């Protein structure tokens, strides 16, 4: 008798490899103000951080630090009518490598590409015209990567910007959706982890022969229903309908993400307010 693996059991009861249902996002936690801001602590602050957030989606963990708005260092970067938005995405040496083993964090094309994507997604939301001739720097550190670091980075950046008090048009929430066939059945799932992303992007051309495999990270402004970012590198033989289905699932995922983020911000706001009123719970930071 052939032994059953855990994943087999899960797939028999229509669960994914990590035990989630197809429409379930990973466990997500948000921590606003993860780093002490500049005006905290000693008289000699080390960083010029004005807002920060630590977001973990499943096993992916991302830290985002926002600096600014402050003066532009170089005159050439200065824009007369709006702020410059600089986005840097870095991985830490201890975060597991993606699909490549060696990556120089300054020249890694994937990171550069992601920083550009992040920049486009965020500039759709930040009211940059309020801070002409200044610069906002968003630095993202990937602490642990289990797939979906771009989505986690976008969510963390939104929260860090809110923590820094930078005006946003709307919260930008990101979530991915994917579709592949497993055992002859097409599955559309939300918020893929690394193993699922590999399944969705690795076997291009479709497992079942008829269906596409799609991996689609999407960023939306959920309260307006706008999509600010959707990146799809797969071949779409199923046509626009297949794409639309996946996009819908991803947008629903974004809505779920937004609710978690909103709760985190609200909690933080209430905590700050409590401290202002002088009724603080014991909360040791640092």
């Amino acid at each position: 008798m052939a032994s059953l693996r855990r994943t087999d059991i899960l797939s028999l009861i229509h669960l994914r490899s990590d035990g989630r249902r197809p429409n379930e996002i990973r466990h997500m936690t948000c921590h606003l103000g993860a780093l002490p801001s500049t005006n905290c602590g000693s008289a000699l602050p080390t960083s010029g951080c004005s807002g920060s957030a630590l977001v973990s989606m499943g096993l992916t963990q991302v830290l985002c630090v926002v600096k600014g708005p402050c003066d532009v260092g170089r005159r050439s970067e200065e824009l007369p009518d709006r702020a410059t938005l600089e986005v840097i995405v870095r991985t830490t040496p201890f975060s597991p490598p993606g699909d490549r083993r060696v990556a120089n964090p300054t020249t890694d094309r994937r990171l550069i590409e992601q920083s550009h994507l992040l920049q486009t997604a965020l500039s759709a939301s930040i009211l940059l015209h309020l801070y002409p001739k200044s610069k906002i720097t968003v630095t993202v550190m990937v602490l642990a990567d289990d797939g979906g670091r771009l989505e986690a980075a976008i969510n963390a950046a939104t929260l860090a910007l809110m923590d820094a008090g930078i005006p946003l048009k709307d919260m930008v929430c990101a979530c991915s959706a994917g579709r592949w066939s497993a055992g002859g059945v097409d599955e559309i799932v939300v918020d893929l982890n690394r193993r699922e992303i590999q399944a969705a992007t690795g076997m291009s051309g479709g497992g079942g022969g008829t269906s596409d495999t799609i991996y689609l990270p999407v960023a939306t402004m959920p309260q307006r229903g706008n999509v600010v970012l959707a990146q799809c590198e797969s071949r779409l033989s199923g046509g626009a309908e297949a794409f639309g289905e996946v996009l819908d699932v991803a947008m629903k995922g974004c809505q779920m993400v937004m609710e978690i983020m909103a709760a985190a911000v609200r909690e933080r706001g209430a905590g700050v307010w409590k401290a202002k009123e002088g009724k603080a719970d014991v909360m040791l930071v640092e």
Partner: protein
Amino acid sequence: MESIIHNFVLPGQVLATSNSETDGGFLRGHGTYIEIVQDKESDNRHATKAWGNDQSNYNVVMQTDGDDASNQEDDNDTLKTGPQRLIASLAGTVQRVNKLISVIPTSSSVYTGQVGDLIIGRIIGVGGSRWKVSLTCSHNGSTREGQLPLSGVNLPGGVQRIRTSEDVLAMRSLYKEGDLVSCEVQNVQRDGTLILHTRSLRYGKLENGVLTTVPPGLVGRRKNHFCTIEGKVFEKEGANDMQIDDEEGGDVDVYLGLNGGIWIQRKIPSEWENTQGMDRDSRVPLAETLQKLRQRHASTRVSTLMRERIARVRNAVECLRLVQYQICPESIESVVRASLMADVRVGHMICPEWVVQLTEGTRQ
């Protein structure tokens, strides 16, 4: 608490809709933006979404006069013609003054200025007949800067005249880069830039003391931000003499900057003022006398005992910051008292176990 949660908005939430452009149901305040509705279709969708969330009772906070929630729910026709919508752009609480709707950010790391606030800042630039003041008290990478124009300071000797180009050249003799100053917000510009001034004798350069910084959210607005912690707070009951110098009164001054900068120094003893007053000529203006007092304060050594007191106050503030408790003279005093009662050495006050123990009485 209930009301705070109720008024809390997130970026993107609709605060108000107005029916027509000429209606003018609201005025845009800080932390909001106006969007002109163009597409009826998308407007409807958006509107139902926003109002639909209303059932969870925090989402939409207020609407303009004449539009109440039930109206909105029932007929969307009024919305179709509504060309303007006021949307929050910050996470915070909503404030409404007549038609003006603004969002006050509750982020603890952000200081939003108001006219009349006391600010402890650091000069980071001189030029263009103004000083640049970092509101985060840091030398570099400061995120918020205030402007202190030359016309906003008192000239040495307290003379009142129009500033000349010589004054511009002598700006560094007043404040140079790296100096700490206490100043007041004179004006908040449209883009949120703060215009500061030091045109009162209470404000000016800060010397011979200790700066510590806390999240601005912890410093509440109060009547007086120049506080004094009296010497008797530091005296333990039972201990008879605290060989405090007669020169120094033993009081500690605490300036609570609303931007989160907290300056601690010894209180300028009243004897000094008297001695200054003795040889004070009636012709010599008050400004000059005070300036002399400041100079004397800056050049006089602080005694060891006084230093310990200042350090104790500083660590008391640090304790309060660590437990995120509001920083006010009462809370500082109570932590200082607790630390003396428990006989804690100044350096040990910010050990986590002591932080919890010392602030226990304050937190209740």
